[in-house]
């Protein structure tokens, strides 16, 4: 079951708004193949009708409504002196309520082969009876859906993110822009900005350009932290290319990281939404604090499950959660939706990091196997392998010593031979399902399948 809202504006006192195409678009966007779409007017002076979209006929309908409930018939509802709780902007609209009584406020439409089942001359109308106004219809779709995918959403949105990132980098001085551009062009899944863009479409205030600016800021912030992390971890390569620190030196890496940290916070401040600014600042603080925690734990390498979760919550999940929350806040989404998305983002972030840990042992990743082992980085497969009854003692012995090529290869072999990768995979998928459950009960304006698909694809990957 998917639920959402159809929002539109009317421009006349009485108006027949043909919603057939929009409803078909919603069916396609949701991926409903066979089932039902339920529509319900959320207003007492807005009706629904299925009829022919022929202009003269629509005027006939209007005249019929006017004859049956004339505007000047004298309605008791319009006598405000006899009514209680009259709003200051209350309209004189007894006729509109009476006309609505002649129509219906709800409709169930059948869907087959991914389209509304409609007769040749049939169209679906919202009938405005007291316009002009901003209107919305509640919509629920149930039945058999296509497997979730986000390609349809992704193309246009991804393009907007890339355009905005390019635009931002073009404005920056070369000494900072060039290293950042190389890092960006080398790849990256852009999951965090995608989450911003998606969640910015949930609330009533939808402004794609502001959302793109926030999405770009989040991606710049993420990459700024990676540049400093690579220096701290003494990493020589990221996304198949030399790190900024390795290529340009530590001094330049620190300056580039600082520049984009500052630029991202400026872009966020310029949005003029204090809640978004606070959300992102809290996430940044969590990232920095857990980076310190992460390094501190390397003495107890490979660590344990609890400490792993503590670090990952700050280091990875905080920005996923902040991306979801800030997008939703930007769109003025209701508080319960924002909170559900925060939990979704945090669980997804943890699951994403677990999947990332597994990629270190995947021969299809395009990266040398065992990079995390060599760098003594926090890794759940290593933690589980070290706990394993069969391979654990040897893993622990190897990790306690110096790690040359031979030792790294052997640890990777032991991890792969053990149950560790399966356990991590199960746990990551479990967290994704938990994340999906978090957004089950809230109104997401038809975006649930996309968020579900994005979460599942973030974990089911080998690179």
């Amino acid at each position: 079951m998917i639920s959402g809202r159809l929002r539109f504006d009317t421009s006349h006192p009485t108006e027949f708004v043909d919603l057939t195409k929009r409803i078909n678009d919603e069916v396609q966007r949701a991926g409903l193949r066979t089932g039902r779409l339920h529509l319900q007017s959320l207003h007492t002076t807005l009706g629904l009708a299925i009829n022919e979209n022929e202009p003269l006929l629509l005027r006939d309908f209007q005249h019929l409504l006017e004859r049956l409930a004339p505007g000047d018939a004298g309605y008791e509802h319009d006598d405000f002196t006899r009514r209680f709780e009259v709003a200051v902007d209350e309209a004189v609209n007894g006729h509109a309520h009476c006309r609505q009584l002649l129509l219906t406020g709800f409709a169930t439409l059948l869907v087959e082969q991914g389209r509304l089942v409609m007769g040749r001359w049939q169209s679906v109308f919202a009938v405005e009876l007291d316009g002009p106004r901003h209107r919305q219809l509640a919509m629920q779709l149930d039945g058999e859906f296509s497997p979730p995918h986000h390609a349809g959403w992704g193309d246009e949105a991804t393009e907007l993110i890339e355009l905005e990132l390019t635009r931002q980098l073009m404005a920056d001085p070369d000494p900072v822009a060039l290293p950042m551009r190389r890092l960006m062009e080398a790849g990256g899944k852009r999951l965090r900005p995608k989450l911003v863009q998606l969640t910015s479409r949930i609330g009533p205030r939808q402004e794609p350009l502001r959302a793109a600016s926030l999405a770009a800021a989040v991606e710049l912030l993420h990459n700024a932290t990676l540049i400093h992390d690579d220096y701290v971890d003494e990493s020589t390569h990221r996304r198949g290319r030399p790190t900024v620190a390795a290529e340009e030196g530590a001094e330049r890496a620190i300056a580039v990281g600082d520049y984009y940290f500052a630029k991202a916070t400026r872009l966020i401040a310029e949005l003029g939404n204090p809640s978004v600014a606070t959300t992102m600042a809290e996430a940044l603080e969590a990232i920095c604090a857990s980076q310190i925690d992460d390094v501190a734990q390397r003495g107890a390498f490979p660590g344990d499950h609890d400490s792993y979760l503590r670090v990952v919550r700050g280091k990875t999940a905080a920005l996923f959660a902040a991306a979801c929350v800030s997008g939703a806040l930007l769109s003025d989404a209701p508080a319960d939706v924002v909170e559900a998305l925060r939990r979704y983002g945090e669980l997804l972030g943890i699951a994403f990091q677990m999947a990332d840990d597994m990629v270190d042992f995947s021969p299809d990743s395009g990266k040398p196997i065992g990079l995390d082992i060599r760098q003594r980085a926090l890794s759940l497969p290593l933690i589980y392998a070290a706990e394993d009854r069969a391979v654990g003692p040897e893993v622990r012995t190897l990790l306690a010593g110096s790690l040359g090529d031979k030792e790294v290869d052997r640890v990777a072999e032991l991890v792969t031979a053990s149950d560790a990768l399966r356990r991590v995979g199960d746990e990551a998928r479990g967290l994704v399902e938990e994340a999906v459950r978090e957004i089950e009960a809230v109104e997401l304006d038809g975006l649930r399948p996309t968020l579900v698909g994005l979460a599942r694809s973030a974990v089911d990957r080998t690179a």
Partner: protein
Amino acid sequence: MSVQTLNRELDRLEGLWTDGLSDSYRSYLDAVAGHEPHAQPKLALAAALIEVGLRLQGLGGRAAPPPTLLMGDLCLARASRLLADAAGQSLQVAFAQAIESLSAAAASGQQARPVRELLVNAFAAGR
């Protein structure tokens, strides 16, 4: 980087207040005088954390060792949170622009204006 080194850095964070942060904080109290009284301590502390954070990182000079860089990052992040809590939009933008200007100069190998001067100007610009 060893754990012992990091523990020392954590101790240093505790010691930052006596090791320059408090002096830096006091130096900004005049600059924040025109802002809302309840926000003044947070704003002065944010400026001091930025000044100390950039110094710890070695921005514009010799790169700090990794543990010290992390402390510097944390100082900047805490400053950012204080500003989000206590500063208006124009002041947040002015502070960010000050760091952008300092780090762009550092990346270009150019001499930047003193941090304190830039931040005091940011207080004036963001009032």
